[in-house]
């Protein structure tokens, strides 16, 4: 088969130009790695944002010296709201203990006075409560007697969401940049390979080789380089993730009750596949310019 002859020549090309190709593959692997890393960071960041958006919470801080009757009345009112899923009362002392337990503290913090934290109701809103709805509830509750302040964490959520949006933009720009970079690097490498194999190209053309026959191996070589670079970058990303996830997981669990996740296998497959396709495309672009058949 013609394809067989092309594969044989492509293999030979890869072997003979291996120094050239090792340089190309390693620089492309770094490029793919940066995209993979950005995607991984974005994925976890947006998961965190989603999680915060979904599990709307609010903390209702009670005024100092609130009457027990007022507090009970407040609790009943809050519990009667349909959006409120659960309610927990936290005295100032309890809040202090919880803080100290979480903050793996040094002893200077342990010297905090007992009344450093105000008493509060920790309100868990029903899953799926929109942030806007949570804000209205907070406003209404805020008018009740005996309340000092209400924290809806909406500011936090907004800031995180903005971060995710910015991150998506950066990841998109980076992907586009890497796309260009892959096409340029492979194109340049193939241009060099074409120059080095000028004599055999001439011989083939004089023997009646078609365009396809002459170009095919170069396209295969480009595709292979792109594929190899993508596979390498995925492997490095996996290794880095395995090594670093422990450190992130502890703080993420404390912060939002989530764990880091790796990229979906389908996304990994897409990265590898696009590596191959980009390699082939870069090679084809270069051949069009530098190989007049």
């Amino acid at each position, binding site marked *: 088969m013609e394809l067989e002859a092309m594969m044989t020549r492509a293999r030979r090309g890869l072997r003979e130009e291996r120094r050239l190709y090792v340089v190309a593959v390693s620089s492309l692997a770094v490029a793919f790695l940066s995209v993979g890393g950005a995607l991984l960071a974005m994925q976890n960041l947006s998961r965190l944002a989603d999680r915060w958006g979904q599990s709307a919470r609010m903390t209702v801080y009670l005024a100092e010296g609130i009457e027990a009757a007022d507090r009970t009345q407040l609790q009943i009112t809050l519990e009667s709201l349909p959006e409120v899923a659960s309610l927990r009362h936290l005295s100032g002392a309890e809040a202090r203990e919880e803080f100290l337990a979480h903050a793996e503290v040094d002893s200077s913090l342990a010297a905090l006075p007992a009344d450093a934290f105000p008493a509060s109701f920790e309100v868990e809103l029903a899953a799926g409560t929109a942030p806007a709805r949570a804000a209205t509830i907070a406003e209404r509750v805020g008018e009740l007697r005996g309340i000092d302040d209400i924290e809806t964490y909406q500011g936090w959520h907004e800031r995180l969401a903005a971060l995710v949006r910015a991150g998506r933009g950066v990841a998109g720009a980076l992907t586009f940049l890497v796309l260009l970079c892959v096409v340029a690097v492979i194109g340049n490498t193939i241009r060099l390979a074409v120059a080095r194999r000028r*004599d*055999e190209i001439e*011989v*083939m053309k*004089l*023997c*009646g*080789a078609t365009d396809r*026959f002459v170009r095919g191996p170069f396209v295969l070589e480009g595709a292979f380089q792109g594929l190899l670079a993508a596979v390498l970058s995925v492997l490095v990303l996996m290794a880095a993730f395995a090594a670093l996830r422990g450190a992130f997981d502890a703080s993420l669990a404390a912060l939002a009750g989530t764990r880091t996740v790796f990229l979906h296998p389908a996304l990994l497959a897409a990265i590898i596949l696009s590596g191959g396709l980009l390699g082939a495309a870069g090679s084809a672009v270069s051949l069009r310019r530098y190989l007049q058949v």
Partner: protein
Amino acid sequence: MAKRKEGARPFAFFRAGARADAVSTAKPILVLEDVYKYFREDHPTLRGVNLVVERGEFCFVTGPSGAGKSTLLQLIYRKHTVDAGRILFCGRDIARLREKSIPFLRRNLGIVFQDFKVVRHWTVQENVAIALDILDMPRRLVRSRVGEALERVGLEGRGGERTENLSGGEMQRVAVARAIVTEPALILADEPTGNLDPHLAIDILTLFEEIHATGTTVLFATHDHSLIAKRNHRLISIDEGRVLEARQGLASWRSDAPPAPAEEPVTPADNPRPVLRPGLHAVS
């Protein structure tokens, strides 16, 4: 010239799967009609070349440096296109071939150059096999055909050697093997002995004559007069872009141009090698 109707696909012959029909086999293999080639506007390299080469002829093409010998051959394998006139190969006008069909024209030609044009880092086997790989021939057949061709050029058993380790004469034999392995109808040799010493030049010439003896048409460009004088082949002399027939071959014999005596005539009867079937390739 009267226009001939050749159907919707006049160049089907050069395409994959086409077969040479009886008509094209009977025609002269090569006809040049009033061919002009300009590389500079004011000064044509070839001016009004008329030439008929019959099937099975051996022709020397000679002339001073810059006369246009190489240009003539390059027009035949469509490195360049004529600016006026026609070149008919097996009755088909190759100037009208589309770019896409040029490979199929070249598959019917064997081309040999002064500078060998072998791939130096390939083995001898690979250099010859490439011509058959292009035809998409099965591996097993390629091996046996390459072996056969190497035997014909006197390089039997040397297929595994790297070509760059060979001597100049041996490299040219590799190039000849590559040219004949596809059994083309026409061999174009552009000063194939130009880089070789006189003794080797005779060897290579003899090799072409052996190939010719099996029925292949050969155009052999050279400006080596000692080589031409040793043989009684038809002599096509080019000067200032015009063709002068100095010595006629068998097919276009004229009584006013008696052939020069041959010192070492090589006839098919002298050739002990098996006769292959040169001719037109139907590429599949």
